[in-house]
């Protein structure tokens, strides 16, 4: 398979364990006195964005950081519960950089780039050191050293955690580093600013256009390079575990300006979320994967068994994960746990009012360890569950159902994390690079921080040192043009004065995506979705109601702009899902399964990254392929049995 000429992955040659070290030596440097002459824009202040902005400012670059929230500390990384992986091997249980690399490539169902994943595993140990130095209060043992637990898809304990709030503590660490640099004057912070356009000058990313969400003012910012760390696109499904504000707008606008979008159909459905309960519902709540360390997943053996869980005797329960995957049991990777929940519910063995739920039962662990130990491990999660459902998980098993949680796809980047637009770098969940078709638990935090603390500080210097970047400011006509595009779009949305709310359209799109392009996908359903999405989009532009004015704090207008972008992006996601006629990781095509119903990859045909080039709204995008070479890990059918 020939690589598209437009996709130069820039993977260094040499043995996998030496690639990054050698590459760092080969990268060009910007001398300390010259760094302050370069200005870098960072959009997004989650783990990847905050860590990048802080680290670049520490090096001496001038940084401007943007977020749409009222404070950088509110980025959605904060909601990650369970933990962060690192190949420290503190428990002495056989972990290594190589094993973390291997587990991640395998967990990703062999659709990730080996070299990127190896680097991720390599720097994972530095991340823990960095965070501890910042004062992140990871869980400790009585001897004063750090504690670890295990997560899905791994047979070692390599996950560091801070109760059930690991994302919060890591983000507050990165945020404190960012605010330290704001105080020092290295970073200029723009909160409540939403990026609405990327600006290119002579083919290079040279700035952004934002809307000040307080005043409605459209403003331009010029720089020598732009970094997007704007997260994933799970909210295209409306109901997801993502925060309400998470959106595809920044990456989609960059895509429309020429950045290729890679593997958008690789979405992750998290197996343990609180089930859907009503039409007013605005989001789904995830319960950390760590619960599967001590909770046992089961449904009744018999269809339509509506007895309360306690009344169902042991021999009439089906602990289906333990039965089907004895060596990993309840800790199989997320895609398998989710798909199996769907299978048992489709068989009519689901529990709860809707029949769309499975039990996650702690009775055995409470018996074995005592309620106190369980409270220590999961107290805040149990409390959260009780708040939402009104049920007490110490007494009755939790009810769980899968929900969209994370997106492995994202803007295509090379080994230096640069997109197909020179100067535009993409970090964290917003890029596609490390998780293949399925992300392992506790790896998102690792990737966000790896990109921000330990990769981009090296690679952006190389870009700035090895390219001619002429002086440009916001008086350049490209900025005026981008501002005009933004203003036109805003005025168009405000002028429709239709009858349906923005959320109403978002819900319709989300339901369609969940039905046709959710946990299981097939050709017919995907084709139906491809027909329906443009129709919804058309009605949106004829009949949406956006109240308020442009020059004001206007949350409806903000949402309308994001939903408008989801309505375009959804088509690309489905196009990608339709073209990938294989099952891998989170992408399950019903046409491609083994006789036992497991995902069947087709390595001969699909062992590549699908990078899509935008050709206009409503036009078929052009597919570019980056072949995936597996030099180190041999391709195999994943088995967790």
């Amino acid at each position, binding site marked *: 398979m020939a690589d598209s000429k437009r996709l130069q992955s820039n993977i260094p040659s040499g043995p996998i364990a030496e690639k990054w070290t050698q590459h760092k030596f080969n990268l060009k440097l910007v001398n300390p006195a010259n760094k302050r002459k370069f200005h870098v824009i960072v959009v997004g202040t989650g783990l990847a964005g905050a*860590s990048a902005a802080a680290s670049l400012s520490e090096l001496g670059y001038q940084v401007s950081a943007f977020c749409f*929230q*009222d*404070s*950088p*500390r*509110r980025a*959605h990384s*904060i*909601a990650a519960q369970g933990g962060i992986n690192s190949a*420290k091997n*503190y428990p002495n249980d056989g972990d290594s950089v190589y094993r973390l690399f291997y587990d991640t490539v395998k967990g990703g169902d062999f659709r990730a780039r080996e070299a990127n994943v190896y680097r991720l595993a390599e720097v994972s140990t*530095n991340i823990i*050191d*960095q*965070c*501890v130095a*910042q*004062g992140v*209060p990871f*869980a*400790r043992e009585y*001897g*004063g050293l750090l504690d670890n637990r295990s997560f899905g898809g791994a047979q070692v304990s390599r996950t560091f955690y*801070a109760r059930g*709030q690991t994302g*919060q*503590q890591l983000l507050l660490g990165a945020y*404190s*580093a960012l*605010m*330290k640099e*704001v*105080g020092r004057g290295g970073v200029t*912070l723009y*909160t409540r600013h939403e990026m609405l356009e990327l600006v290119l000058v002579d083919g290079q990313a040279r700035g952004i256009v934002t809307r000040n969400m307080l005043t409605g003012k459209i403003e331009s910012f010029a720089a020598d390079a732009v970094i997007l760390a704007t997260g994933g696109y799970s909210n295209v499904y409306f109901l997801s575990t993502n*925060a*309400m504000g998470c959106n595809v707008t920044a990456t989609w606008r960059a895509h429309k300006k020429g950045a290729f979008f890679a593997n958008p159909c690789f979405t992750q459905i998290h197996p343990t979320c609180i089930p859907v*309960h*009503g039409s*007013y*519902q*605005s*989001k789904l*709540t*995830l319960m950390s994967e760590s619960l599967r360390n001590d909770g046992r997943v089961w449904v009744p053996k018999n269809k339509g068994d509506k007895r309360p869980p306690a009344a169902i005797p042991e021999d009439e329960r089906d602990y289906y994960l333990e039965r089907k995957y004895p060596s990993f049991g309840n800790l199989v990777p997320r895609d398998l746990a989710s798909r199996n929940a769907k299978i048992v519910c489709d068989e009519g063995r689901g529990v709860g009012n809707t029949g769309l739920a499975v039990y996650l039962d702690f009775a055995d662990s409470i018996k074995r360890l005592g309620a106190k130990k369980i409270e220590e491990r999961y107290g805040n999660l149990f409390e*959260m569950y009780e*708040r*939402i459902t009104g049920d007490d998980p110490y007494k009755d098993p939790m009810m769980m159902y899968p929900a969209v949680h994370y997106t492995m796809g994202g803007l295509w980047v090379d080994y230096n994390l640069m997109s197909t637009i020179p100067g535009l770098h993409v970090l964290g969940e917003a890029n596609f690079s490390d998780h293949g078709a399925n992300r392992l638990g506790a790896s998102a935090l690792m990737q966000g921080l790896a990109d921000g*603390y*330990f990769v981009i500080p090296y690679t952006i210097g190389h870009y700035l040192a090895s390219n001619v970047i002429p002086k440009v400011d916001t008086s350049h006509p490209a900025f005026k043009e981008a501002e005009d595009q933004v203003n036109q779009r805003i005025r168009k949305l405000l002028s429709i004065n239709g*009858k349906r*709310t923005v959320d*109403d359209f978002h819900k319709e799109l989300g339901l369609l995506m969940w039905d046709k392009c959710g946990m299981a996908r097939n050709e017919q359903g995907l084709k139906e979705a491809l027909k329906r999405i443009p129709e919804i989009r058309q009605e949106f532009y004829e009949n949406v*109601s956006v*109240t308020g004015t442009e020059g*004001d*704090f206007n*949350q*409806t207008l903000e949402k309308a702009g994001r939903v408008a972008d989801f309505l375009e992006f959804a088509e690309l996601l489905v196009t990608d899902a339709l073209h990938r006629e294989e099952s891998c990781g989170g992408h399950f095509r019903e046409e491609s399964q083994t006789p036992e119903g497991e995902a069947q990859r087709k390595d001969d045909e699909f062992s590549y990254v699908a990078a899509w080039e935008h050709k206009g709204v409503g036009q078929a995008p052009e597919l570019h392929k980056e072949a995936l070479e597996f030099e180190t890990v041999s391709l195999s059918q994943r088995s967790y049995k």
Partner: protein
Amino acid sequence: MKETINLTLKVWRQKNQYTPGKFEVYEAKNVDTHASFLEMLDVVNDDLTQKGIEPIAFDHDCREGICGACGAVINGKAHGPLSRTTLCQLHMRFFKDNDTIVIEPYRAKALPVIKDLVVNRTAFDRIISSGGFVSVKTGGTPDANAIPISKENSDLAMDAAQCIGCAACVAACPNAAAMLFVSAKVSHLALLPQGQVEAKRRVKNMVHQMDKEGFGNCSNEYLCEAACPKGISVANIARMNRQFMGASIS
């Protein structure tokens, strides 16, 4: 329990910081008791939009109680009647049919209203920026297990570090003090060896910035702890005061 209830809402509407606000009354019919408070507001907002009225502005994001974006004063209490709960995690089953609910923004000089229930909390960011960090740069840090930290201190630090920066403590305090917020960060770092090097400088700078922002002082009402969705203890305020005294006389 009834599955749906009817409510009367008295909601503070204010165009911006410079325009006086006032209460408006809205009826919320057939509210599902399983819905969260913010989902109830979503439904009310949909209804207002249908009538061509601009929806009620309120901050929110994660809706799972951790981002700290949401918050309003519900019947006189920050984040509503339930203890240790953010507004997004307050569910309508805690209200009764035909209840009247008064919904107001946090009120404090240092947290000016932006619109309706949305307030400006950037003062908190400036306080963190003045000293709420350990001045380590990326890279060159020692191995994470190089310094053992007692589990007790580590757990206490974590208790304080859980603060979500929602500002309910300020809203609950009759003096609009931010002592619980500031002391939580001071304590988190003061309890760990990593925070020792800059401890004195940190507490002085953060307290100075807190005063400069216009927050009030502590008069031991403990209303902040009662309102805190993470249950952060006022013991942190005592610790901060000790730290501050120590830093000021040495």
